[in-house]
C-alpha cells in the first residue's frame, strides 16, 4: 500500500493497526478506536480495576511497541547518515519500552504478548516516507497511551505510561525536525496532530 494513501485513509490505518496484532481487551480501547469504538465510554478510576485489566492494557500497548520496533528496523534500511543514527536510537528506546512493559506484565503474573513474525507495512520509497510513517506510528502510540492512562489501576503504571508518552513525543519532535517541519507544533501533545 502506498504511504500517502495509508496516511490519508482512516480505514486503511484502522485495518493496519488491527491486523498488526493489536490486542484489544475489554479494558483497552487504546488505539484511537482502531479496533473498537468504546473510547466514548466514560473512564472511571477505582480499586475495582483488576490486575488482569492492567495486563490487558499493557499487552495492548506492548503490541504497539513491537510494531514500532519492527517499523524502525524496516525503515532503517532506507536511511543514511544522521537520519539513520536517529532511527537506530529510537529503535533501542522502543525496545526498552517493550522490555519494560513485558516486565510489568510479568510482575502482575500475566503473560506478555510476543511480536508478530511479520508486519504488512505500507511501501516506504524514500527517507521522507520512513520519517513520515514513523511520525504516524509515534502519534498513534501517544494517543493509545493517553487513552489507556486513566484505565490503569496501578498508579505506578500511570507514571510509567506518562514517561513513555513523553519519550514518544520527543521522538516526534526529532522526526518533524528531520523533515524540516515545526518540531513542537502544539502546546498539548495528544498524538492526534500530525
Amino acid at each position, binding site marked *: 500500500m502506498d504511504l500517502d494513501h495509508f496516511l490519508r485513509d482512516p480505514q486503511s490505518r484502522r485495518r493496519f493497526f488491527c491486523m498488526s496484532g493489536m490486542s484489544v481487551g475489554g479494558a483497552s480501547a487504546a488505539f484511537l478506536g482502531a479496533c473498537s469504538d468504546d473510547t466514548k465510554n*466514560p*473512564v*472511571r*478510576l477505582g480499586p475495582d480495576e483488576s490486575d488482569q485489566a492492567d495486563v490487558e492494557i499493557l499487552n495492548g500497548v506492548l503490541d504497539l511497541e513491537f510494531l514500532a520496533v519492527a517499523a524502525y528496523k524496516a525503515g532503517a534500511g532506507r536511511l543514511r547518515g544522521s537520519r539513520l543514527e536517529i532511527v537506530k*536510537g*529510537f529503535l*533501542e*528506546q*522502543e525496545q*526498552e*519500552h517493550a522490555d*519494560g512493559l513485558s516486565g510489568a506484565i510479568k510482575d502482575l503474573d500475566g503473560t506478555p504478548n510476543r511480536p508478530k513474525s511479520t508486519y504488512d507495512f505500507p511501501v516506504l520509497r524514500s527517507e521522507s516516507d520512513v520519517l513520515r510513517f514513523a511520525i504516524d506510528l509515534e502519534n498513534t502510540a*501517544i494517543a493509545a*497511551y*493517553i*487513552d489507556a*492512562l*486513566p484505565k490503569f489501576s496501578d*498508579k*505506578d503504571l*500511570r*507514571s*510509567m*505510561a*506518562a*514517561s*513513555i*508518552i*513523553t*519519550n*514518544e*513525543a*520527543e*521522538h*516526534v*519532535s*526529532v522526526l518533524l*525536525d528531520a523533515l524540516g517541519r515545526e*518540531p*513542537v507544533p*502544539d*502546546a*498539548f*501533545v*495528544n498524538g492526534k496532530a500530525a
Partner: protein
Amino acid sequence: MAASGSAVAIFDGGVTSSGEIAAFERDRRELLRRGFGLGGAAVLASSIPLLWSVRSAFAEAGGDGDAPILARAINLERVSVIAYDTLIGGAFMTPALGGALRRFRAHEQEHEDALVTALTSLGGTPPAPPQGVADVDKVVDGLRDVRSRADVLTFLIELETAAVAAYFDAHAKFGEAKLLQMGASIMANEGQHLVILRKAAGQDPVPNAFETGET
C-alpha cells in the same frame, strides 16, 4: 557563570533547601566553574537535588484531591512564563533561539490557561500570581546569573526538566481521568521543549527511553 538550579521548592508551600542539598549544590557549582556545566556527568548531578525537592513538594500536595495539584501546576506554568519573558528580552538571543523560546512561552501560557479552567471547574480558586524573578528562584534558582547563550539553555533545560518531573509525579496523584490525560499532554510538550533546548546545547536530544525528569 552558568545558570544553575538550586534545590528549592517547585511549588509554593513545598519543601525548602536542606543542608545536604546546599552542600550538593556547592559541589555542583564547583563543577560548573570547572567547565563541566554542559557535560553529562554534571547535568546528571544537577538534577538530583532539584528533583528531590520537586517530588517532596508533590508529596505535600497529596491527600486533598486534584485542586491543590492544579494550583501548584498553575504556579509552575506562570513561573515558566516569567522565566521565558525574562530570557527572551535578554541580550543573548539569536533569532532562531528567540523564535523557539517565544513559541515555548506561548505553550506555557496555554498550559496555564487550561489548568486555570480545570481548577475553576472544580470550584477552586487560582493561586496568587508570582511576582517576578524572585518567585522564579523558588522553582529554579539562577535566572539572575544568566550571562550567555549557554547559560540560557542550561537554565531552561533545568526548568523544563523540573516541569517534566512534576507532571510525572502528578500522575500518581490525579484522581480525574481527564486531568491525568491533560497532565500527560502537557508533560509531553515540556519534553518536546527539552528536545530543542538540548539540541541547541549540543546534548543528546532524547537521552532516555523513559522521560521522568531525570537525566
